[in-house]
């Protein structure tokens, strides 16, 4: 006996129908296919999103990145949630989704990825996870953060990012043009600038380390990583219109076929999400228009002129009034000026970081950096972080001051050599 007798019966019945009407099969096939396509279009995203979660196998989760120490990496417990906002991928498969959470810095952060069973993750494709085709859950990591004082939702105005269809943003088998630019140009350039500054300051020990770092990144820059094919890249567009937003329209004057209208909901603070094939460079004239009650149209992009009132659209509460801060009286701690750009003084507080400013001329005050946490009661030497090129244009002698959260700790006068 068969394990699935109903399937056996259905197949035999189907075989009988095929035998009985061989000539009509093609027509019928066409009709059914047309109907299926029409149904698929009519059902749209919901059907795809539901079905997409059925067959994906789950692999090991994506390992969390090393902790950067940033406050954005520290998550307020209980604030993480995957919003019920989905966007279809141009190539099908599990839909894209948005996760929001609050960082300890106070900012709201957003993370995008593919959604399977309500979880945010990446797919093993485009070189990620050896193309195992499985779903890998993502750790909670900030992809974009933002917020406005007094606004209790992520007031992020539609960041766009290029990533592969896998949603895995770490470099794998290929890279985007932007990643390549960062790797080959921006990173080595910033390290070279830091090295130059250290050499000018005579910080030889730090410069030795910096040279090794530069050598490593130059090797990395010389590595050949192929560019990802456009078909594998995704421009993930998202943002939040606030609770009173009505809809978002995405258009591109150079692509008449591109016109997407996304309704938004107050329950998700007006969150929207859309995924295009390619990178943001492929859509330089993309326009986003945000519609609010009363005919207010805001937005961004090529040729979009937001209406007056978009600085604070409906649903965005006014910022809380600033509290008047009373600055305690100045301490006038004696500060000794050393040779070069350095000072020495006794910290009045334990483990306190102080802000150092230098008056370059009557109109320009230069932030000379923050000190390390200084111990109380004994003299500490503090090196000023001031670009020598800039310092060369400042008047002599250089006067400056040390402040502790606005409170004046003491003043000093430097006599650097020309």
């Amino acid at each position, binding site marked *: 006996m068969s394990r699935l007798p109903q399937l*056996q019966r259905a197949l*035999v*019945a189907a075989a009988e129908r095929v035998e009985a009407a061989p000539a009509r099969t093609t027509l019928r*096939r066409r009709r*059914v296919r047309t109907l299926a396509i029409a149904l698929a279009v009519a059902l749209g995203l919901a059907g795809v999103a539901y079905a997409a*979660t059925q*067959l994906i196998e789950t692999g090991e989760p994506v390992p969390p990145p090393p902790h950067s120490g940033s406050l954005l990496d520290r998550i307020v417990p209980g604030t993480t949630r995957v919003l019920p906002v989905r966007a279809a991928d141009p190539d099908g498969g599990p839909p894209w989704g948005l996760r929001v959470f609050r960082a300890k810095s106070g900012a709201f952060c957003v993370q995008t990825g593919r959604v399977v069973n309500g979880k945010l993750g990446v797919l093993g494709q485009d070189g990620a996870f050896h193309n195992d085709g499985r779903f890998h859950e993502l750790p909670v990591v900030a992809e974009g953060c933002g917020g406005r004082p007094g606004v209790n939702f992520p007031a992020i105005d539609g960041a766009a990012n290029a990533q592969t269809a896998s949603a895995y943003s770490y470099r794998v088998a290929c890279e985007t043009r932007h990643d390549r630019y960062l790797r080959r140009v921006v990173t080595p350039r910033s390290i070279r600038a830091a090295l130059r500054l250290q050499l000018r300051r005579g910080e030889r020990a730090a410069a030795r380390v910096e040279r090794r770092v530069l050598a490593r990144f130059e090797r990395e820059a010389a590595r050949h990583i192929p560019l990802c094919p456009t078909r594998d890249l995704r421009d993930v567009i998202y943002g939040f219109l606030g609770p009173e937003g009505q809809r978002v329209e995405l258009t591109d004057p150079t692509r008449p076929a591109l016109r997407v209208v996304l309704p938004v909901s107050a329950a998700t603070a007006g969150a929207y999400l859309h995924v295009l094939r390619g990178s943001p460079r492929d859509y330089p004239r993309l326009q986003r228009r945000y519609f609010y009650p009363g005919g207010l149209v805001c937005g961004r992009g090529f040729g979009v002129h937001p209406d007056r009132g978009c600085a604070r659209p409906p649903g965005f509460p006014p910022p809380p009034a600033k509290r008047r801060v009373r600055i305690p009286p100045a301490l006038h701690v004696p500060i000794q000026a050393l040779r070069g750009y350095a000072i020495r003084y006794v910290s009045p507080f334990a483990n306190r970081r102080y802000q150092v400013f230098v008056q370059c001329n009557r109109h320009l005050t230069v932030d000379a950096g923050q000190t390390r946490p200084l111990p109380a009661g004994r003299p500490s030497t503090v090196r000023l972080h001031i670009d020598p090129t800039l310092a060369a244009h400042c008047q002599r002698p250089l006067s400056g001051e040390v402040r502790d959260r606005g409170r004046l700790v003491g003043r000093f006068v430097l006599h650097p050599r020309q």
Partner: protein
Amino acid sequence: MGRLPDDNALLAGGPADFGIFYARHEDAMLAFFLRRTGSPELAADLTAETFARALEGRRRFDATLGAAQAWLFGIARHVLARSLERGRVEDEARHRLGIGPLSLSDDDLARIDELAGEPALAALAGLPDEQRQAVEARVVGELEYAELAVRLQTSEAVVRQRVSRGLRTLRARLERRP
């Protein structure tokens, strides 16, 4: 009692013959999909789609190119790959043939689940992890040794050795069964 016709004759025959062909290969298909998906519902759906495609394409089957079972497994692998790629079970052939969705009872699911306890599968589960992965990927997944070496992050020679040892152990265990 007459001798049962072979697969080629069944595929060339009428609707009832296709029913026999289905019954003959049903277990193999269900076990194949059950092993790959771990879900009896999905295994049933994928099996239905595979046989629907086989029904549509049975007149194009060419016995000189290989056995009917191999042809059927080829369709099964294609259906599974397409379904994984699209993230949902393919159902185009069933739509075309007017075969409705399966409604599975607990008894049906239990009967499919029985296939998970096949002796070969149980013996496979008993292999050391390295050998099990290698045998599964090579024999069930039909991956090339080179691809398998990349996936398991080892050399091709080591993969070949693991598959060979795994199969030898499996054979020995199955032969020892009463």
